[in-house]
């Protein structure tokens, strides 16, 4: 499998609203280390101003220099949006601070579409706090699934937020990559959904939830993907007739 990462630490030095998030760089580099160790192929590993809003918007996401549709797997670590509290129509945002490809704010529900056209993305990992709010998951995340298999994120508020930590992305990689040789079973390889339930709840505040969502032609297929799909399964792309998601709250 091919993977990319986008980690944004610098918001204030580049003139964007802050604060800066120093752990995002350790997080994406830890993710890269595990995935490369497992034999996956890195596509792009942009950091800071080289991560662009257009990378996550339909149309720009196929940019050969770093769009999120180039690989099968993408991890974003940076700021997101946290309404306080969100409602069913609240948008979810990914927030970058790019040198190009502005605007820096991406409305996931209206602007992101993954797996369509020539897009390759199967697994979208968002570690940006709240841009997967449970109350608005239908408006914001059902539409993005074209041939996308699964996505992960958080649901919360500004009082129930995710903290800047390298551990979620690094541990997600360690648990999903499928390590080589005997390590493949000495260290457990988990499904994407189970791994995110375990690691997505690391360093988050009480009331914040780790969320994993999958799509399928049938309800049974969507649920099976949510529970069992591993990045190494090589499953075919789903037809997004049904969505199944799960969450664990800290």
């Amino acid at each position, binding site marked *: 499998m091919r993977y990319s990462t986008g980690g944004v630490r610098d918001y204030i030095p580049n003139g964007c609203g802050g604060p800066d998030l120093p752990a995002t760089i350790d997080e994406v580099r830890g993710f890269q280390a595990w995935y490369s160790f497992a034999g996956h192929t890195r596509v792009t590993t942009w950091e800071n101003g080289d991560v662009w809003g257009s990378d996550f918007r339909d149309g720009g996401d196929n940019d050969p220099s770093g769009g999120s549709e180039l690989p099968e797997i993408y991890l974003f670590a940076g700021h*997101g949006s*946290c309404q306080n509290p969100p409602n069913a129509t609240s948008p979810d945002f990914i927030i970058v601070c790019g040198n190009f490809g502005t605007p820096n704010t991406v409305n996931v529900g209206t602007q992101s579409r993954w797996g369509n056209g020539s897009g390759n993305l199967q697994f979208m990992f968002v*570690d940006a706090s709240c841009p997967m709010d449970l109350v608005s998951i239908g408006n914001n995340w059902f539409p993005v699934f074209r041939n996308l298999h699964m996505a992960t994120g958080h649901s919360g508020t*500004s009082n129930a937020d*995710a903290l800047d930590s390298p551990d979620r992305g690094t541990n997600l990689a360690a648990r999903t990559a499928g390590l080589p040789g005997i390590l493949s079973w000495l260290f457990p390889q988990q499904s994407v959904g189970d791994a995110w339930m375990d690691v997505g709840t690391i360093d988050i505040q009480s009331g914040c939830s780790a969320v994993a969502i999958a799509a399928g032609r049938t309800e049974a297929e969507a649920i099976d993907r949510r529970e*069992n799909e591993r990045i190494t399964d090589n499953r075919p792309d789903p037809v997004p007739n049904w969505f199944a998601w*799960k969450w664990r709250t800290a």
Partner: protein
Amino acid sequence: MPAKPTALSYLARVESSELAATASRIAGFKFRKPEFGTAANTSGLRDATFVFSRRLDSRTIFATDARYGALGKLGAWTGADKTATSTCRRILRAAKVPVAEIAKLDVVVEWGRSAKRVSENEFKFREPYVLRKIVRAARAVNGIPVWKSYVSLGLTAGGDVGSLEVHWPELPSAVIKEAGMLQTLVKRGFRPPDVAGARLESLEAGILHSSAIGFYMDVVAAVRAVYIGERPEVGRKPMWYFNRLGEPIVMPRDIATRAPESTAPRAAADAQPS
């Protein structure tokens, strides 16, 4: 590099029976014709049903029954919390986790839900349901939190161990002592550095160590400072770890990382700098 056959044979002979006994005592697993494996800082046993492995450099255990899970043959526990926590206490004793270090034992509920696409913008939602309950143990030593230590236990529907992780590393006394010093400094008004665009939300002394899956076991005392941004609607709060002088600590490692190979800035073909 894999162990040489002679070494592997010796290790298998020495460790297999002990691993099987430990798996039986802690998780209740009874192996049938298990395969022994060892690599890097781990060793373990597996058969068609069970996997039991442990780190050689830490009190860290992984145990899995392949039949466990919401869709698994043995299902997942959704019953009384008290039954699950009682089972966890028994396992903690069997794993030789010091009782005095168990700061909290609680049950986390994992929920599931599904929805059908009726049209492009219309969806029919089903009601949420409980997928499983997980017992989690948190750790503190002398009242000092050890942030990354945990026990996580998922039981089958019948109450047997389905998934167990124990990550409760031995801690150097010098680190515990320094954490106590940091706790005193926090009580006496330790002031962490300011973070641009944010204000301090909370401050706590504790102990940080490497993750359960990894090739290092670093342990360090630190003051953890959580900040909230000036625009609270922007999510992911800054969190820094400082030493006694208010300097950022070197974070515990899990795997060797490296900087990107190219440091040349990304160029846009058709875009103007923003």
